[in-house]
């Protein structure tokens, strides 16, 4: 029996990740022994795991993987849903950045340092950011600069500054630049006034200039070792922490953020819809729920309160921001709000298109919620109902879905400025197209509206 190597695990020679029988294992290679031992014996691992800053693991006595060169094999706690920085809202990326710096400070206290600072090494577990790469540490040698400084600035500071000071949608650059936002790009995009902030001047503008100036310089490695005192290192971390804490973004003024304050439902209709979704969720034994077009997560929270690991997707970064802040405030450990454009969902990216998973690779969920969504896909994006049914059938085995008919004011609004080329968009056609892939278990009209909510079960193929 042998494990299957995780496709994204190839850069770091310290070890590698494997999966076996649905569990994940991390091999620690012999050459990383001294650093791993220090992580454990210095008490750093325990402190980080107890603080919820690092994923906990157990050492597996005998290697179940059948691989060579292993010093140890670890079995880390599973992350219920892997997410990526291009799916995070502003505060998620900011919290991940601050968690990374907190880990760095604790590491320095224990004579170690982060040898990488990738945003992909942070995941959300029980609602909070945790480091998942146990092999991210090495022994700190006083005098040496921080190897991962460039990576930290590219993965955290530059995108956060661009999101905060220019446009929150700049986090989508992560989909193009696998190793973070190029600093010369950040420097050219950021407002001129950022040059008058010492930290921004140093970490972004001078950093970009320095990269450009020395890109072709070959350094003589035989010269006297360089010196960067521990005080300087702490100053560097403190400077990064201060500038990141100072970056803010306020979620307001987008199309969707006031959705529940608009006139889509009467007060009674909204209460009825909430009760109905609650009842339908009770009819399915679901451990994982994906709520598509979740807005600020009103319905996701019902699923999360029932104990389901709930991924709450929305296209609007402001909605996801509010959803995340609410989840943090409530200590809602089952919720994971994420940004997702369903018309262009997260693809596989990275080396050989295998480093980062597509959203479909991360499924299927036990149940998918798609409320007040179908008309946007079918009418705003011209996706035929049958194609929507196929897409949703690939995402989960059960479906709570709302059909919004053409007579609804929201659909009328979508059709107001364009020709109605959707003769097939009817309740009968909807039921027929979804009926080829799903069995309709229950349907009910939302009070004071013509909208209908269905519970469906995917027909086994």
């Amino acid at each position: 029996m042998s494990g299957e190597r995780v496709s994204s695990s190839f850069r770091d020679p310290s070890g590698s990740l494997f999966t076996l029988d649905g569990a994940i294992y991390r091999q620690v290679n012999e050459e990383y022994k001294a650093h791993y031992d220090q992580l454990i014996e210095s008490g750093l691992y325990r402190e980080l795991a107890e603080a919820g800053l690092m994923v906990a693991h157990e050492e597996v006595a005998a290697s179940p993987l059948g691989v060579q060169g292993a010093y140890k094999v670890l079995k880390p706690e599973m992350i219920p849903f892997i997410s990526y920085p291009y799916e995070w809202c502003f505060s998620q990326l900011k919290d991940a950045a601050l968690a990374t710096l907190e880990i760095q400070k604790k590491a320095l206290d224990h004579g170690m340092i982060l040898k990488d600072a990738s945003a992909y090494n942070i995941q959300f577990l029980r609602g909070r950011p945790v480091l998942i790469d146990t092999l991210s540490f090495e022994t700190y040698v006083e005098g040496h600069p921080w190897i991962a400084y460039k990576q930290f600035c590219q993965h955290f500071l530059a995108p956060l500054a661009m999101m905060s000071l220019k446009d929150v949608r700049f986090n989508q650059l992560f989909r193009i630049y696998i190793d973070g936002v190029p600093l010369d790009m950040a420097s050219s995009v950021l407002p001129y006034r950022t040059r008058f902030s010492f930290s921004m001047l140093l970490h972004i503008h001078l950093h970009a200039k320095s990269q450009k100036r020395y890109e072709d310089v070959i350094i003589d490695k035989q010269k006297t070792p360089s010196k960067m005192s521990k005080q300087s290192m702490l100053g560097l971390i403190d400077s990064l922490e201060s500038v990141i804490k100072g970056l803010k973004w306020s979620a307001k003024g987008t199309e969707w953020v006031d959705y529940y304050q608009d006139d889509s439902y009467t007060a009674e209709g909204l209460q009825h819809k909430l009760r109905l979704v609650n009842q339908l969720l009770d009819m399915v034994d679901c451990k994982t729920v994906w709520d598509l077009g979740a807005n600020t997560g009103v319905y996701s929270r019902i699923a999360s309160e029932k104990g389901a690991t709930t991924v709450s997707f929305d296209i609007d970064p402001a909605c996801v921001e509010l959803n995340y802040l609410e989840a943090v405030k409530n200590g809602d450990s089952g919720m994971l709000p994420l940004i997702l454009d369903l018309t262009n969902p997260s693809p596989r990216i990275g080396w050989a298109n295998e480093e980062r998973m597509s959203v479909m690779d991360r499924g299927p969920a036990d149940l998918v919620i798609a409320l007040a969504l179908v008309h946007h896909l079918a009418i705003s994006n011209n996706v035929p109902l049958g194609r929507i049914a196929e897409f949703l059938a690939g995402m989960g085995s059960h479906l709570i879905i709302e059909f919004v008919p053409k007579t609804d004011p929201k659909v009328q609004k979508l059709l107001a400025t364009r020709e109605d080329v959707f003769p097939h968009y009817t309740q009968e056609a909807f039921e027929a197209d979804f009926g080829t892939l799903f069995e309709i278990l229950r349907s009910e009209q939302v009070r004071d509206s013509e909208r209908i909510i269905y519970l469906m079960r995917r027909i086994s193929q």
Partner: protein
Amino acid sequence: MMCTLIVLCLMVLSTSKSYAYIDPGTGSYLLQMIAAGVLAGSFFVKTFWRRIKQGYQRLLSKRQTK
């Protein structure tokens, strides 16, 4: 230019004792060296000022409780 040459001469990217696998980037590495003194100084002033502030606050709260 002279300053750069001096920094370059002092500079070594030797990572033989570490287990680094990512490229630190020459410019990123050098920048930390160049800014090291300023970073250490500002951190010293900041922590020093914080201690004075904390000490003053402790003194103030002691007087208020008396």
